[in-house]
């Protein structure tokens, strides 16, 4: 049964990692689209396409893993979820428009709309995540939420700052953003991690009490990220990317494992809410088979997108 928690959190971690990557793209697009366009364009297509589908993946997996929790989650988060949906539709539409409009001006404008909408979605998503960790603003018994308090509270805001720092660090390595300070990405990543653990210690101390017994894992994650930074600065971009992604995925996963077995601070014990019906076994089979096919599909995509050369000297789709 606990394995379904790990599977669900594994899916969530992958989804969150993709969201961080896309937030990185959005940041670059908003800061200076023309300057970062080559880096953005190289990776934006698989990221936005796969990330959108990952939302559905995570939602359905959540419904399988915690059918008893659905009523609570669905009832309290209806406002932010629907707001995020509206913005997400604009985000998807504008990235697709920008790919084919073929003129500089509208393309830049469309990318700006895409970037801003992605940042807004990320802000809402991180606020929802933070509230599900801390339980601040949520009344579990009456299944109600104080929305202004959900967005504006010490934990959520500081947590968001930490996420932004981590995202900037990872994106800098992944998209090859040049900086005068060689280890700035590592500094940002480590600062984000420290701030996240610090604010967690203040607001959700039970998570950090587990942390003290496994501190070495965080050191390994940080070391992996610094190694990624080193590799990227030495021109080994692919190694840098893989290490940075692995370190970030591990850090998200690790945080989630320490959060177990509670949600919403210590108010909901999820150990008793996990699906214990026969559905779990079938769902695990689908996850294993589907996940393998998904992995193979992504490898195929990577091969055609980044490894196989063009047969003809063409630019863009349908040219």
């Amino acid at each position, binding site marked *: 049964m606990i394995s379904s928690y790990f599977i669900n959190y594994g899916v969530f971690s992958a989804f969150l990692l993709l969201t961080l990557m896309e937030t990185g793209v959005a940041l670059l697009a908003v800061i200076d689209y023309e300057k970062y366009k080559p880096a953005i364009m190289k990776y934006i*297509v698989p990221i936005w396409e796969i990330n*959108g*589908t990952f939302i*559905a*993946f995570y*939602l*359905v*997996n959540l*419904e*399988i893993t*915690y*059918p*008893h929790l*659905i*009523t*609570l*989650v*669905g*009832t309290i*988060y*209806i406002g932010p*979820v*629907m*707001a995020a*949906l*509206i913005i*997400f*539709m*604009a985000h*998807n*539409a504008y990235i*697709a*428009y920008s*790919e*084919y*409009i*073929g003129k500089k001006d509208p393309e830049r404008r469309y990318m700006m709309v895409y970037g801003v909408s992605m940042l807004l979605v990320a802000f809402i998503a991180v606020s929802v995540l933070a509230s599900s960790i801390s339980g601040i603003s949520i009344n579990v018994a009456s299944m109600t939420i104080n*929305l202004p308090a959900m967005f504006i509270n010490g934990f959520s805001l500081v947590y968001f700052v930490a996420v932004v720092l981590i995202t900037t660090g990872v994106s800098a390595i992944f998209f090859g953003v040049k900086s005068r300070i060689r280890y700035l990405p590592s500094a940002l990543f480590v600062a984000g991690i420290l701030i996240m653990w610090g604010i967690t210690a203040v607001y959700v101390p039970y998570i950090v009490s587990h942390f003290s017994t496994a501190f070495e894992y965080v050191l390994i994650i940080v070391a992996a990220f610094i190694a990624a930074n080193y590799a990227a600065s030495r021109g080994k971009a692919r190694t840098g990317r893989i290490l940075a992604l692995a370190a970030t995925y591990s850090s998200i996963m690790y945080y989630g494992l320490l959060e177990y077995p509670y949600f919403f601070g210590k108010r909901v014990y999820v150990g008793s809410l996990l*699906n214990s019906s*026969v*559905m779990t076994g*079938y*769902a695990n089979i*689908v*996850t294993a088979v*589907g996940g393998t*096919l998904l992995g193979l*599909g992504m490898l*195929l*995509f990577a091969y*055609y*997108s980044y490894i*196989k*050369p063009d*047969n*003809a000297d*063409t630019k863009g*789709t*349908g*040219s």
Partner: protein
Amino acid sequence: MRTLTADFDRATMAYTLGAHIILASLGMSLPIIMVIAEYLGLRKRDAYYSALSRRLSIAMVVLFAVGTASGIAVASELLVLFPPFMSVVGKVSILPFYIEVFAFFGESILLGIYVYSWDKIASRRLHMLMGSFIAVFANLSGVLIIMVNSWMNTPNGFNIEIYRDHGLLTNIDPLAVFMTNSTPIEELHALVGTLFAGAALIMGYFAFRLLKARSPERKRYFRGGLKISFVINAILVWVAIIGGSLSMSMLYKLQPVKYAAIDANMFTRSHAGEKLFGLNLHIPSLQSILATGHPSGVVPGLNSYPSSIWPPLWIHDTFDAMLVLGTLVGLLLLAGVFAAVLRHRKKENRGIIGKLVRIFHPYDSRLMLSFLAISSLLTLFTMEDGWVTDEVGRQPWIIYDVMRTSAAANTSMIVIPMALGLMAFYVIIYVITFVTLKRIFARRNLETDIQKESDRIGETESKPGRKYVPGKS
């Protein structure tokens, strides 16, 4: 207040789904037409079909982007608008949804490869094969979603009596959802109907553009698209009509209240007649024969059931509208098929037949092109209308005879402003998407695209193909 928020939940879900199925129907039919165009381009070495295939793939990406977001909106709304319902689904019948996620992944990954690797995949047949799998995955998603809808109409896979009495889910069989009593017929009718609506929209677009086209190359290009979509529609419409007839027989057996409301039967009776197409054309005992196979067969009436479980009675009108419009479009397409066949066999030259062929020829008659353009919108309306009939006909249940929609609804007041915002946004995003698609294609010169395809054929084929020659078609 609970009723108000429940109504908003219902309206929001209905609106979102109603908007989403337009994109879904296009997303299911477009890759089929795109791949057939690529196949014809390859087989005939025809630059026009190749250009058609490429340009359709661009439309596919834009519609996929908006469709993905819209699909996620539907998935999320199910969770936040009807949490108790999803809680039951999560334990009993979620496997089709879960497998659909991977079909969705398959579609998005292959679409990415297909669109961005035209010039990387040396074998055009391999490229076409990838396109075929996009069509397979897109339609598999439709099959899986309809399975869950069939389960909502005829639930199985758990002990319904115990759930009704005690609210406990027992004897769960997660695989039962794949084959409920209504699944085969609902798949036939709903899947084919959705495909038909999407293909009809595309056919209407090509008919309209052919009507407006002036240059020979443009005429030939749009005619190619029209040919593919017309043939698909001419087949699908009759399968959809047969599926519809079978659906009514199924409702008679499995959802008699819905059947009675759809046929406006107030009283249970034998020798029930039928008013054809809602007109004053009454045929005695026809309904009894259609439903039971016997003129004396007893058909259910609403008086046999408490009014608290009656669906809204206006579904009788939406049903009649679907029947009339579907049959009209079917007959129009049939006339087009006969005209095309007769012209092909060169038997159309004289007399009244010749006149009819000239009127109904699907590619050459301007009147028929106008009919086809209008019929595509009517088909879209028919699909929406049929879907409304099915979903409203199940009310007041979200899971037929098991869980009421009102009991499954989220009663949070925030539903109201959010629902209004979402509805407004859908309208805006649809308008912007179609305007942007128009701008994208306006900026891509069709003649240039055809010329490029012609050059490619010249580079890759030793034998001369049907190349593009400006001014000639």
